[in-house]
């Protein structure tokens, strides 16, 4: 039965790991949400590409739909794009570091950073 026990232990480890990864994915989306000129925007590749296209096409001002599909006038495309790019890079770098930590963790204790032996 030792083999069965180890399978169940592994199953619990996977459950914790999957949940931590899911929480991280949701958190990254949350952190990539910014408020700008009254709109709420999720910084993703679509927004970044669109802002880049607008800037390269010579637009200083444009109306963009926010997360709630509300048209929002962005009066400073260049600055907004710069701010979004910086935020995107910062949050994605943090997410990568956290994902590596989760993948590297070999036990439930390491996954949640808690020493259960103390309980």
């Amino acid at each position: 039965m030792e083999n069965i026990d180890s399978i169940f232990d592994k199953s619990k480890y996977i459950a914790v790991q999957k949940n931590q990864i899911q929480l991280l994915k949701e958190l990254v989306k949350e952190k990539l949400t910014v408020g700008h000129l009254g709109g709420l925007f999720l910084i993703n590749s679509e927004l970044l590409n669109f802002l880049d296209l607008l800037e390269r096409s010579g637009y200083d001002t444009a109306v963009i739909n926010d997360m709630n599909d509300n048209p929002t006038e962005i009066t400073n495309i260049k600055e907004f794009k710069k701010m979004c790019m910086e935020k995107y890079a910062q949050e994605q770098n943090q997410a990568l570091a956290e994902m590596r930590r989760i993948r590297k963790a070999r036990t439930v204790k390491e996954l949640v950073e808690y020493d259960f032996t103390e309980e």
Partner: protein
Amino acid sequence: MTSQKNKGVLLFAKNNPDFNYIKQAKVAATLAKHFLNVPVALVTPVDELEEDVSLFDHIIDWKQKVEEINIRPIYVEGKFRKVSWHNLDRLTAYDVSPFDETLLIDSDYLIQNSVLNSVWGSNIPMLMNTHTRIPAKHQQHIYELVIEDGFPKVHWFTVMYFRKCKEVEEWFEVCKYVKQNYEFYKKTFRVPYHYYRNDITAAIASHLVGGFRDDFMKPLPTRQINSFNMEHILDIAKGKIILRTESIPVLLKDTNVHCLNKTEIEKNYDKFMEIYS
């Protein structure tokens, strides 16, 4: 954009024999100040205050003409008990808030990141979550799944953003009207709870105000993560809470959480204050 003095966090707190809501509010306010860097106002009966509340920027005296107490069954330290909740004046938040833009939060809502700062200056005058998850699973608690079957989406009054304007004022007025006629609306909407819930009142009010559709209320940028009463705090560090849930342990890093197990906040009061004060 509004100035710093015109935006802030609003909390309601009134102690009952089971819970020290002032203590919980102090933890919630300390975290809110740390992560959002905005002033915090407390609505409380001033003549009942026994604790130091100097950390709050505004104290608003909560004067009830008629004492209304909401009795709810709550899971406290392993057992279900009938507990009195003084949450019936929450619908006065619009009237009492000293801010032009308010983040109304529960005293058991623990903020661990600055994402809520993105709501200030929003074009939409109020935001509230209608979806939830529990810490250990990417799904709602089973109770809420039952409620949502043919029911307007439950509005989580735990956190709400609102701006002072006619639209929001009218929404709060409709909430008060629904509360006054709660028995009628409870039957009409087949509300499964025998006790009163502000979350349900908000859901019904949005349905009525929003043209009898369920897309009136727009969500906050943060998730509504509900840690229910049977879950415990294992450890706390800066920006981290480790929970023991019914199935697996969960590390909530940089993540806001609605900690319904209020005794856990009180038990860890000193630790929270040590880390964040």
